[in-house]
């Protein structure tokens, strides 16, 4: 997908200019630090986009998806919900009832394991789909 990283980089540049202004004008370490963090996050996000997709710093509309490429998406994911509740119960347990920390920890491990299985199954079913599909079926992936 082209162009995805350009807005991020443009924005990171604007932010960097304002950060430089802050540095010169205030010289306040914590302010420059916070600013620097934000710039870094955005630059890293842009770098990730470029790393996973070279075209992300080129202008123009995205190219059509490569032929034969399918995507497997689950309809439901209880594991994701449970992982969220596990994280919440760990933090809640810290303030309220310590046993919830252990409960949440256990639940987190179980749900992450289940998530890993889900991802694996998704990959397997995608590969199956791709091996079976005709070359032109991928053209319909996005509803051309």
């Amino acid at each position, binding site marked *: *997908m*082209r*162009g*995805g990283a350009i*807005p*991020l980089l443009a*924005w990171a540049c*604007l*932010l960097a200019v*304002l*950060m430089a*202004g*802050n540095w010169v*004008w*205030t010289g*306040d370490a*914590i*302010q420059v630090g*916070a*600013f620097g*963090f*934000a*710039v870094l*996050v*955005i630059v890293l*996000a842009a770098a990730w*986009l470029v790393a996973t*997709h070279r075209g992300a710093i080129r202008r123009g*509309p*995205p*190219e059509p*998806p490569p032929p034969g490429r*399918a*995507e*497997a*998406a*689950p*309809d*439901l*994911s209880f594991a*994701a*919900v449970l*992982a*969220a509740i596990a*994280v*919440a119960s760990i*933090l*809640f347990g810290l*303030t*309220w009832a310590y046993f919830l920390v252990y409960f949440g920890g256990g639940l987190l491990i179980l749900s992450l394991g289940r998530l890993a299985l*889900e991802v694996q*199954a998704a990959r397997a*079913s*995608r590969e199956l*789909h791709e091996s079976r599909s005709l070359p032109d079926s991928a053209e*319909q*992936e*996005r*509803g*051309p």
Partner: protein
Amino acid sequence: MSATAPAVTTVSRASSVFGAAASTDHKRIGLNMGLASLVFFLGGGVMALLMRTQLAQPHMQFVSDATYNELFTMHGSTMIFLFVTPMAMALAIYLVPLQIGASSIAAPRMVLAAFWIWLSGGIIMQLGWLTQEGAGRSGWFAYVPLSNSANTPGVGQDLWTVGVILAAAGLTIIGGCVLATIARRRAPGMSVMRMPVFTWTQLVSALMVVGSFPVLILAMALLYAERLGAHVFIGYSGAIDYQDLFWFFGHPVVYVMFFPFLGAAAEVIAVNAHKRWFGYAAFVASMLAFAALSMSVWSHHMFTTGGVTNQYFAFTSTALVVPAGVEYFDMIATLIGGSILLRTSMLFALGFFLQFLIGGLSGIFIASPVLDYHAEDSYMIVAHFHYTLFAGSVFGFFAGIYHWFPKVTGARLREGLGRLHFVLLLIGTNMTFLPMFFLGNYGMPRRIADYPSHPGWGTLNLLETAGAGVIALAVATFLVNVVVSLRHRDAAGEDPWLGHTLEWATSSPPPRHNFERALPPITSYAPLLDLRQRAADRNGAAMTRVPAGRAGLGPTPQEDAP
């Protein structure tokens, strides 16, 4: 992806409560988040009504001082962490994939988990009400040392801290997923400069979320450690450091709560004027500048601390005039030459722009340190941010609701009730928040459970309390409208308003993977309008290229070369 893409789980989708709760369909998650935010909105509203009752007259003692402090803390926290910000994100989760022609959101499981993390945080924060010492009560920005365990003991404040961490974590993840969706899932043909206006506003606010929300999580984690007995924020520099970290999130979030609703109002205005949004390129540039500047203004909350360089922050804060001015220019230029229908959504969108203006202009006022030395922490500030967040964002939110309700439910909201809702909200809002400017200037500080009976103060406060009642009535009218419109459905069809963007090129509500037909060619940021205009050109209707006010009455048939 098409409906033939293999699903992983065998459970049939959304067939039960569990199905609705665990669905990875971005529309389901967005809807769930929107509904949860709405519940928090009603809760925060009840807190506001209790506060306004307390303040109706001096020395009311309707609730205790302690309860009052909990009320304003939790009102602010609820509205910011649990209503406006998540509602903006709910709109992103639901609409951004549709607007960019994607079949799903990026990392749907992560979005699902993030929604539940956020919701757990919200519930945990509210659980504080059940504790002995009460809910969080050191203000929504919980300054140290007031918020440490010596000055604010009790589990309620701990729960508040943990709740904020979880809510912010959920919102951060969602922001990242929205960013990834926009970067990676645009339909073929949709270059960055063809993204709809609303998607652009969501993109810049997602940038701000990932850049600033982690700093809040850090600040809250440190505060939590401080409450557990670690000495993190020590003395004067500790107090200033906390404020810097908090407001590095706390100001950007104000714009995260604003941009998406600006985008919503912009879409509504363009569609109801039957004219594409004016000055797209300038708008995009100004949004990027707007977002970058608004990451750089945070210490204007600290002008009176003596710990920051006031001039830098006065400079960046005042400079916001430029991008904000460009948005207003674009809004008016979109209206000029259009053919305007004053549907309820349009009324709310216009209300959004004109009322937010009061918040924005008063924001320029308090961006001046000399003026802020008086206004800071007074009711002028309360008035200012309620004009931005309530008279602004909430009006933009309702504009979006009236606009997209048919897309989400397949049924239109009632126009008559909608207009009543708008008028009541307009009156209530101004009755409640306009007098606050005067009270603040007379010297009434914010966050006081009682106020001296200076001449005029009781009257103005009573007026505000009455206004809050009118707002409650307006919200009730809205809820009635929703119930009536869902019971006796006025079927909307795919595209009831002649929409401009791709979400109107699919059924209402959209199917599981959003688009079952081929997408229309994406030739600009208003692809459906392009389609209609090309069809009109082919049919030979007269389409003027000059401001239409100068054209004759009605369309004149005219032969165009095909």
